[in-house]
Each structure stands twice: as structure tokens, then as C-alpha cells.
């Protein structure tokens, strides 16, 4: 039987699904509501200090990378549901966009 790449793709999907279910709505409320309304302030000093800390870097990478991977995997299965097939093109667009976000985030965090 051919080896399946499913567990490798599925585990981060589940972790990312849980991470975005727990964290993303609160994050959007901060960046999309509380900050615009002036109820919270994300100053450069505060954010840079947080991103400078190794644990802070890991947290920031986690809240970007895990949901991004989750979304990519779900996008791929949904493309299949819509009859777009499961060819390399779909895979490239879905996982490629996630990898792009992950690598750019890693790059940004290393520069801070």
C-alpha cells in the first residue's frame, strides 16, 4: 500500500482548527474592534518587546501559522467538494499560500 501523507497534513489541521477556534475571534476583536475604537492601544514598544521575547515569538508564530495551515487544508478539501479536483494545482495554491505566510512570519520574527 502506498504511504499516505494524511496524518502529517491532518495533525496540524486539527491543531490549527483548535488554535483558531480558541484564539482567532478574540484576536480579531482586539485588532478589528478594540484598537479602532480606541479602547486598546497596540504601541510599537509593547509589540516589539513582546516579539523580542523568544516565547512571544513562538506565540505570535503559532497564532499565524496554525490557523493558516488549518485554512489551507480545509480549502483543499473544499475545492474537492466543489469539483475542482485534488490535483497538484489545488495543493500548490492551498498549502503554498500557507507556507508563504509561515515563512514570511518566521522571517519577520527573526528580524525583530
Amino acid at each position, binding site marked *: 500500500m502506498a504511504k499516505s501523507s494524511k496524518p502529517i497534513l491532518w495533525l496540524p489541521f486539527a491543531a490549527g482548527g483548535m488554535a483558531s477556534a480558541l*484564539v482567532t*475571534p478574540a484576536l480579531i476583536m482586539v485588532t*478589528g474592534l478594540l484598537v479602532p475604537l480606541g479602547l486598546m492601544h497596540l504601541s510599537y514598544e509593547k509589540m516589539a518587546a513582546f*516579539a523580542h521575547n523568544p516565547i512571544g515569538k513562538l506565540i505570535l508564530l503559532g497564532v499565524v501559522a496554525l490557523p493558516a495551515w488549518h485554512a489551507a487544508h480545509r480549502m483543499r478539501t473544499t475545492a474537492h467538494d466543489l469539483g475542482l479536483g485534488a490535483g497538484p494545482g489545488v495543493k500548490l495554491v492551498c498549502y503554498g499560500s500557507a507556507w508563504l505566510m509561515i515563512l514570511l512570519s518566521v*522571517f*519577520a520574527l527573526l528580524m525583530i
Partner: protein
Amino acid sequence: MSRRPYVRQIERSWWLSRRRYFVYMMREATCLFIALYSALLTDGLLRLSQGPEAWDSYVAAISSTPGVLFQLVCLGFAAFHSVTWFAVTPKAMPLVVKGEPVPPKAIIGAHFALWAVVSLIVFIAAGI
């Protein structure tokens, strides 16, 4: 894996034919908005790495009217993802304690409680 996998022809709009299918497709569509918001956060990290001016222009952009409207749509879909994700947890990770299955409602309820705690931590961390 076959090199030319068979792709069955299907009606692209099949999910509009029944309410149950539509809700399923809305659940799947949450991934688009999760991905778009991840892209917004990625941009934030890049701008943060470029210094105070770049960061301030990023904050101004996410606080603009289009920025807020976009994020409100993302918030709606993200919350729908949370609710639907927690709803399937009893099936995805059934729990047995002392030989008795934990009732599905307890598993779902625990996730909602955890959601509240994590959200509070995010608000406190961002508010300090």
C-alpha cells in the same frame, strides 16, 4: 495513487439545494476568512519588523473603515468556525472516564469555557 485520478463531474452549486448543505459550505468557507486574517497578521509582523513608522501605518490601516469592515466579516466567520468546531469535538475526541462515556454536552461545554478563558487571556495580554 493513480496518475490520472478520476474526478466525478458535479454541479458546482450543489450546496445551495438544501439548508443543511448550505450550512456545511458556510462552515467550510470559514477557512477563507481565517486564511485572509492570517495574511493580515503576517503583514503585521512584517511591518513590526520594519520599525515604528511601518507599525503605526499598519495600525492606522487596520483601524480604517475598510479595515474594520473586513475584520468584522472575518470575526463573524471565525466565531462560526469556533462554534462548529466545538460542536464536533465529542465525535472527534470522545472521552471515557471510569468506563463511562462523558456526555457530549459536557465536552462541548468544556470547550466553550476554555474559549472564554483563552479570549480573556488574549484581552489581558493585549490590554497591558
